[in-house]
């Protein structure tokens, strides 16, 4: 039996969406290898595991580690706990979401287990009893296909990539122990960004502005359009960030974030190769630009050629109307 461990993620006691994605991906591996899925939930207790329905995403067991020191991310304690569980369970693979937490956690676990790690994976499979993955490299300009030559295979999954289906499994909840370990670093506080908004890497819709915005004051247009969608995050091109118009957390592209939303709207962005690399896996791409020859139109599914200062307010109005009706 080749059991798979899926590491979930909670914030303030609520399981994040990536948790079900990790469990679902683990389910695919378990089915390929003929095994079971354990979902690992780490927190301070009182986590709403039932609401997340991890059994419905494919977990046979849900192992809950409740420890007062695990309310927010505790890098050393989480890593030790995952590594200990991985050793106890003798898993063939450990699946972690490639979020800010997961990207910090997975390499620590890999080093503790002396196991190879494939990060930010977008496809997962089994061939000849071995775990195989695909991952974008060069910020999506190429796809690398890899095979694990040893177990356990550690994999971190790009958020928003795995579409969770239905897998009716028991999801039996059991308690699991926290590993005792000295904390070398301590998270003292978690602060929401001033805008308190959605992160570009996780939003279903991203509206980004570029050099064509001509100045930070005009980003209100982009924010209004994002607001009209209701569930959109505001992004920016490198040019807009380097000019100091927007915070770097919003930068989309090779030296910023890679995003895969359902809808990406590029406003006043010409489409430099490093920007296209960061958003080309979006499901649908819309571009508004005054230059018909801008490279962004070659990446876009739908384009409007025109002055963004005229087009965007009208688009905002039309989106509002469509969503209201």
């Amino acid at each position: 039996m080749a059991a798979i461990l899926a590491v979930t993620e909670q914030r303030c006691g609520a399981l994040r969406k990536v948790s079900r994605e990790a469990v679902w991906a683990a389910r695919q591996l378990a089915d390929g290898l003929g095994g079971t899925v354990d979902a690992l939930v780490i927190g301070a207790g009182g986590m709403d595991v039932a609401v997340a329905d991890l059994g419905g995403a494919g977990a046979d067991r849900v192992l809950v580690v409740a420890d007062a020191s695990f309310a927010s991310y505790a890098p050393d304690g989480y890593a030790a706990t995952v590594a200990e569980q991985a050793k106890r369970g003798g898993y063939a693979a450990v699946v972690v979401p490639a979020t800010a937490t997961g990207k910090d956690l997975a390499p620590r676990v890999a080093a503790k287990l002396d196991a190879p790690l494939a990060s930010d994976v977008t496809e997962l499979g089994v061939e000849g009893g071995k775990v195989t993955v695909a991952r974008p490299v060069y910020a999506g300009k190429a796809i690398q296909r890899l095979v694990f030559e040893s177990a356990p295979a550690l994999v971190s999954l790009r958020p928003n990539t795995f579409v969770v289906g239905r897998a009716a499994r028991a999801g039996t909840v059991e308690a699991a122990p926290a590993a005792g370990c000295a904390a070398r670093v301590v998270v003292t506080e978690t602060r929401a960004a001033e805008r308190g908004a959605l992160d570009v890497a996780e939003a279903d819709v991203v509206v980004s502005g570029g050099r064509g915005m001509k100045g930070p004051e005009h980003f209100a247009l982009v924010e209004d359009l994002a607001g009209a969608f209701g569930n959109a995050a505001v992004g920016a091109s490198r040019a807009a960030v380097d000019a100091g118009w927007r915070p770097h957390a919003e930068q989309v592209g090779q030296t910023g974030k890679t995003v895969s939303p359902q809808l990406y709207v590029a406003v006043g962005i010409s489409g430099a190769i490093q920007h296209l690399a960061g958003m080309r896996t979006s499901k649908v791409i819309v571009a508004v630009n005054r230059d018909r020859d801008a490279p962004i139109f070659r990446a876009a599914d739908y384009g409007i050629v025109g002055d963004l200062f005229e087009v965007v307010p009208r688009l905002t109005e039309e989106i509002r109307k469509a969503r209201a009706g």
Partner: protein
Amino acid sequence: MKIAVCIKRVPDTETRVRVASDGASADEAGVKFIISPFDEFAIEEALQRREKAGAGEVVVVALGPEAAQETIRTAMAMGVDRGILLKADAVPADALAVAKALAAELRGGGYDLILFGKAAADDNSQAVGPMVAELLELPCVTSVVKLDMEGANGTAQREIEGGVEVVRFALPAVLTADKGLNAPRYPSLKGIMAAKKKPIEVKPVTLEASRLRVVRLEQPPSRKEGRIVGEGPDAAAELVRLLREEARVI
């Protein structure tokens, strides 16, 4: 203050990627190589810390081919004191194999701070820094956007989705630098001249066998041809109709 900065030689981010004849790696012919952009934030932070302390040494360590000496020279032109090249023909996909070689070099080096860029612009694993920290049993904070040090005690802010985490740690420690931490300097002409005389120690390394094998490198699936819906604000209504009825995303 003795600081190590681990850097990587990567293709320029404006480069198009072509698959090499082996079908598993990128063709390097005619490609310009640079210091991975996030590593520049790490170098800048090290230089500023040394300048603030008024004394100390900044050492860059690169694992890569002979040509990575040029990457080390660029770091030296920014102000880094000396360089170490861990010479390997190729950098494997197994980040842990790389981390072990770096950890072996850094262990016992007496470094107060070991810095990395958040991610390498080529493989974007974001793994080697925290792996090295684990192997050396040192405190580690990743994706640092703000850093305050008071003596040996540090407070770092690391970026998370929609906010930051505030993290306390003590030196010696491993940090990975994110964009926003500082504004990397450009090498000065004086710096470029001085870099030519600075020492680079070349140490051939034998890496552990990679347990992650690259089967193939592929071009990403091409997107289907898009279309211009129209010109000017009057096209907005038609675009919204298409997003709703054809693309079904609103």
